[in-house]
């Protein structure tokens, strides 16, 4: 697509997600300085080791303390070009902050995510103010890379490539770029505007984006391999998996990412006041997210139904704890068997407990399934090695697939992890491509 459309302005002001404010707002200068000065500046710090992108966390925090915010932002972006969104969506409780030595002193760990948000947002604001870019791309080196999907993995990869003088072309089937950052992340962490602002910043380093182009239909892997020096697959996951319960195939019954995308992006989308009780099926983070979002948006009763014990849930404990604060209840050891309808409308979900025959009726008006998303690997199995779970198999260091010159990263190789994992994959793939052409990436540690 030629030119730079203003996607942020294209977002409707009438979106439900705007009703949910940041749960962790931008620190004030006083807050940031106090928190930054609390950091012990550990050497070989556990927080760095816990970060998939190995950001020099004590280093960027010290720069906040000395009010060298431009330097702080650069320290972050060198390791993670998605530092803006990661600051807001990373599960720091189980990553960097979870590893903070303060936990062992029974002190509150450093609020690393919030400090990272402070540094990156101020770093970018300074870029706009001074007109001085944090990173100047190198002159073109005559290499072109095609990237599939404009989500975090591709954008990270493309950004590192662009900085080294490579020309990246990103293909996206949807009209808006950003992937799940734009359409899927919990609104109290990141609104579409902020996600798109980050995308625009990344693209400004010399990334070409073509939206409305579908991989496998409008373009093929074979074509791309011929036209480009390398290909990066960052297409994420497919549509929501379905249990296909009796009664589940019509109104009032949702796939989680489908519903979240509506909450986040669909102009005028409303939750009908007749929805007094919503039941969410699943025990992962997406299940917790949609349950909390519905509760925060005013659904009077929200229940999560999970087939095993709470301790088996793949969703993070801190997220479940936060959801409970907003009234979300959890029904463990419950397996859904069917949906009852009255005049076509959902009126109950029938569940059994611990495999018992007797179904218990949960009267409700909405049911949301959050049991994972379809893996996209299978459609590529003719060309690439795909594992039993449908994930694209890559080299653990270079992220190169079984096909030379084709790399992959993000949810399509890990089955659905964090933005920070996608950012790491994208960066490592970019560095590996450059090295394969005999270039030494200047931002590599």
């Amino acid at each position: 697509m030629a030119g730079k459309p203003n996607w942020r302005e294209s977002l409707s002001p009438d979106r439900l997600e705007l009703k949910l404010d940041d749960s962790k707002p931008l620190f004030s200068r006083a807050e940031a300085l106090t928190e930054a000065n609390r950091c012990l500046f550990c050497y070989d710090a556990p927080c760095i080791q816990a970060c998939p992108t190995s950001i020099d966390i004590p280093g960027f925090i010290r720069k906040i303390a000395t009010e060298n915010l431009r330097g702080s932002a650069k320290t972050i972006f060198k390791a993670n070009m998605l530092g803006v969104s990661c600051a807001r969506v990373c599960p720091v409780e189980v990553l960097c902050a979870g590893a903070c030595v303060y936990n062992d002193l029974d002190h509150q760990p450093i609020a690393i995510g919030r400090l990272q948000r402070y540094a990156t947002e101020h770093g970018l604001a300074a870029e706009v103010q001074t007109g001085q870019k944090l990173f100047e791309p190198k002159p073109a080196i005559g290499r072109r890379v095609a990237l599939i999907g404009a989500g975090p993995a591709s954008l990270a990869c493309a950004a590192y490539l662009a900085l080294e003088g490579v020309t990246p072309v990103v293909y996206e089937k949807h009209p808006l770029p950003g992937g799940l950052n734009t359409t899927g992340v919990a609104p109290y962490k990141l609104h579409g505007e902020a996600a798109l602002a980050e995308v625009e910043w990344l693209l400004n380093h010399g990334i070409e984006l073509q939206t409305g182009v579908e991989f496998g239909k409008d373009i093929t892997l074979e074509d791309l391999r011929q036209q480009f020096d390398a290909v990066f697959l960052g297409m994420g996951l497919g549509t929501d998996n379905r249990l296909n319960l009796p009664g589940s195939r019509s109104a009032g019954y949702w796939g989680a990412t489908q519903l979240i995308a509506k909450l986040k992006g669909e102009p005028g989308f409303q939750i009908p006041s007749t929805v007094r009780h919503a039941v969410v099926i699943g025990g992962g983070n997406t299940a917790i997210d949609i349950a909390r979002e519905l509760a925060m948006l005013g659904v009077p009763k929200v229940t999560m139904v999970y087939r095993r014990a709470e301790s088996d849930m793949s969703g993070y404990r801190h997220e479940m704890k936060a959801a409970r604060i907003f009234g979300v209840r959890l029904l463990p050891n419950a397996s859904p068997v069917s949906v009852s309808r009255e005049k076509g409308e959902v009126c109950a979900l029938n569940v059994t407990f611990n495999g018992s025959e007797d179904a218990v009726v949960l009267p409700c008006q909405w049911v949301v399934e959050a049991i994972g998303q379809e893996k996209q690997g299978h459609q590529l199995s003719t060309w690439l090695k795909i594992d039993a779970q449908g994930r694209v198999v890559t080299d653990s260091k270079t992220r190169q697939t079984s096909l030379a010159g084709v790399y992959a990263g993000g949810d399509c190789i890990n089955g659905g992890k964090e933005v920070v994992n996608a950012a790491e994959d994208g960066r490592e793939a970019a560095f590996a491509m450059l090295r394969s052409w005999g270039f030494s990436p200047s931002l590599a540690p």
Partner: protein
Amino acid sequence: MADLKTHMCGIESPNPFWLASAPPTNCGEQIMRAFDAGWGGAVWKTLGKPIVNVSSRFGALDHRGTKVVGFTNIELITDRPLETNFKEIAAVKKRYPKHAVIVSLMVETKQEWREIIARSEDAGADGLELNFGCPHGMCERGMGSSVGQEPAVLEKITSWAKEFANIPVLVKLTPNVGDILPPGLAAVAGGGDGISLINTVKSIIGVDLDNLTLLPRVGQASSNGGYCGPAVKPIALHMVAALARDRRITIPISGIGGISDWRDAAEFIALGSTSVQVCTAVMRDGYRIVEDMIDGLSGYLDRQGLSSVKELVGRAVPGFLDWGELDLNYKVVAKIDAEKCIGCNLCYIACLDGAHQCIHTAKGTCNAYHGEADHGKNPRLEVMPPVQHRQKAGVPGHVPNVDEAECIGCNLCQLVCPVPDCITMEEVTNPAGKESWNDRVAAGKV
């Protein structure tokens, strides 16, 4: 409960905590509130000939988020009419007869000293303090630290004061000298009844980097100020102790310099102060801090089995030796408590870069020197390649390991460790017995 009553060269106060001559002792109303809060005495803001002050006047040194670890001022002596001050002194004394009110003075000529001393006594002051210390403003006019830096002048003016005064005279010294003993001895020679020290240190507190002006800013400029607060405490402790251990200093000392709590006060008293004076801590936190100072010092004396504050005075002075007297055979080595260690590696990096490369880590690769313990005897001509250690059996992987043979017992690791009591310095017995450098010199060994 220990007796905190203080008697210093004839000046009595209910406790040793006095407010130093400074903004907290500007006026009668302030000092009355201070006495109500518990302060035992106050040295009135210096009186002298009329002056004019500038705006702004104060600056502070902050460190890693801690406000006011150091403080500076370019304020001069009182800018209020002498008459007003004397009226207030009389009123304070009348209302608080048991508290010490000492009047700080700074004038030039003998006649001026005579007059101002007479007026101070008429107002009912318990004592006088000769301000020979301020390193800003007044020193440019031949007063303050310019007197304190010239022992002969100091002695002479002290003797004038003693000639005119019927009440005790304290001489307040400036730290802006190479050796504090000559002015201290001059104070004794001039007949002073006591010594107060330290006054502030000549300083520039900082530069405003946005417009490259000095701080505190007066228009586009500033001047050297008087530096004080917690950061000067070690300088003050040394000067107090240097006087206290000299037998020729026969008069009592009022210790000043960065005292913020009872612990600081107890250290000054143990190093020879009979009373202590406080300014910066009150400027920051108010008179209320004295409540804990009284309570804390009293509890400390009880725990030490001392029945009065007087018994603490100078107790630590005998331990203040010249370096040449220290025992070269005394040795400690660092010990890390694996149970308490949180794995921050601050001891490792401090020892590696800032000391003697005696702590190793198995948490990441270790860049320390890994030779035989040679205590620096052999030349180290190359950067050693990083080593991945295997952790000792039974010790968690995040706990650094002290090479006790190489450890020179410098304390650095213990000083930087954020966990209380995690690193301790353990004494190593040495059968060699005590031997100092001076012993070696005397024995012809060096």
